[in-house]
């Protein structure tokens, strides 16, 4: 029994050790600004098309589904409100985080994993750089900065998707949809809607980097790490979302 439990417990311990050392290094020199901007470009600009598409189509689908339900109560005019609330509170943060996890947690795990199995991580340490400073810190900071921004874009494009449905298929006026959507949102919706991606960013970047840096076993190992990074970060996103939503509803 102990033998079965040992590897996962050890992995959790190593993950928290990596997270702790990364946090400790956050404000310590050296700071690799070029790597940070490169990562912000890769994660932020690179994820923009997929995040926009996911946001648009989920907003549109929400518009259709909600209008169907609202029709029973003769309240189709409230479509904007429901699209806004679901997008800003839940779908925007979670779907954006899942898209970035699929793209970038996988990217981080495979890139760092390849570096690990080809001894580039060892070379980096031998030649004077701390991989946590050079590789993990820029990825973590970049994800924490750009994921909330991507979520804002996804929320807006989602609302736009809902508007297209409302305007062309439900015959709602533009003012009716946007006023209804805008007025339904409270400050705390926006606050929690942006707090979520900030927290998810840590799960995505740290899990991606952890699996990358703990890769063993050649190219097969890189593939395994990549899969594990995506699966674990997506599960963590859902678990963290539950906890944050629990805090939100209890306030």
């Amino acid at each position, binding site marked *: 029994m102990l033998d079965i439990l040992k590897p996962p417990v050890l992995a959790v311990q190593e993950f928290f050790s990596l997270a702790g050392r990364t946090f400790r290094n956050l404000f310590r020199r050296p700071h690799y600004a070029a790597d940070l901007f490169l990562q912000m470009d890769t994660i932020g600009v690179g994820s923009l098309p997929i995040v926009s598409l996911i946001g648009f189509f989920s907003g549109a689908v929400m518009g259709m589904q909600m209008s169907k339900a609202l029709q029973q109560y003769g309240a189709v005019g409230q479509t904007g409100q429901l699209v806004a609330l679901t997008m800003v509170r839940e779908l925007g943060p979670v779907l954006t985080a899942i898209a970035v996890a699929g793209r970038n947690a996988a990217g981080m795990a495979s890139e760092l994993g390849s570096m690990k199995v*080809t001894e*580039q991580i*060892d*070379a980096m340490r*031998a*030649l*004077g*750089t*701390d991989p946590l400073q050079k590789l993990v810190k820029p990825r973590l900071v970049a994800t924490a900065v750009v994921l909330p921004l991507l979520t804002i874009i996804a929320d807006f494009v989602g609302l736009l998707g809902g508007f297209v449905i409302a305007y062309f298929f439900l015959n709602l006026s533009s003012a009716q949809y946007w006023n209804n959507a805008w007025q339904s949102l409270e400050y705390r919706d926006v606050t929690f809607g942006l707090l979520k991606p900030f927290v998810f960013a840590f799960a995505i970047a740290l899990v991606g980097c952890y699996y990358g840096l703990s890769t063993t076993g050649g190219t097969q190992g890189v593939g395994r790490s990549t899969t594990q990074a995506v699966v674990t970060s997506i599960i963590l996103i859902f678990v963290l979302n539950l906890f944050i939503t629990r805090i939100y509803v209890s306030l």
Partner: protein
Amino acid sequence: MLGQATALAEQEREGGIVDRRDERPVLRFERVTVTFDEIRALDDVSFEVYAGESRVILGAAGSGKTVLLKTALGLIRPDRGRVWVFGQNITEMPEEELFHIRARIGVLFQEGGLFDSLTIEENVGYPLENQPSLRCPPEERRRRVEEALRFVELEHTLDKFPSELSGGMRRRVGIARAVVVEPELVLYDSPTAGLDPITAYTIIALIVKERDLKNITTIMVTHRYQDAHFLAGFRWDPQRGGLRPAPPEATRTRFLVLREGRLVFEGTRAELEAASDPYVRKFIRREQ
């Protein structure tokens, strides 16, 4: 320190008995044990390497050769025992302090360990740019990178990426990166693994050239006895620009043989070839 080492080398070459009681070893392993998943990669290993010496560490795949080199660099922490580099105990030294030790060591990793997203110039200049105790200005960095690449005859590859070079060329770039910091100790991890005999000879000749021109302490791990043969029995001829046979005492080469993490032999080439241990004998015969 260097003067003392040179005097000892002279004494050794002249066939005198060397008294090392006052000399500080460049590298010292003291009963070092390294364990991975309850498997002992290094098991109670002790040895010392002095300035100007060459040390060949022979062993089959999985015998702990690479682990030994990484432990010497502080990349792997021993579970038991102590490691001393340049007289400093690095066993529990923090990573930031280790950088200052590593700045004095050159290392060639098994597959070269080049950064595939950086150009050759950036790869070779990496330690000059990043080692906290080196940090060269860009102009000086460029000059030293060109000089190191000229040493391995690859000065025309500055703007290329590692993927554009052959395996042997990548290994030569790795040597350039190892020597660009003008190290006092160079570690070579299986420098000829996977190379054809002609390229392997080129690599070994570069290692001997670096050792003899700058009197650098050299540690090479390999599974090929042929590499050890060149390191122990040849010196670089600066006049004619090639290797020439030399007596064993001139190269100051000693051998270690690892078997499943344990040190089963330590001695000179003559002692190695006369060894009665069946593992050592079988290993040498097969590799010859």
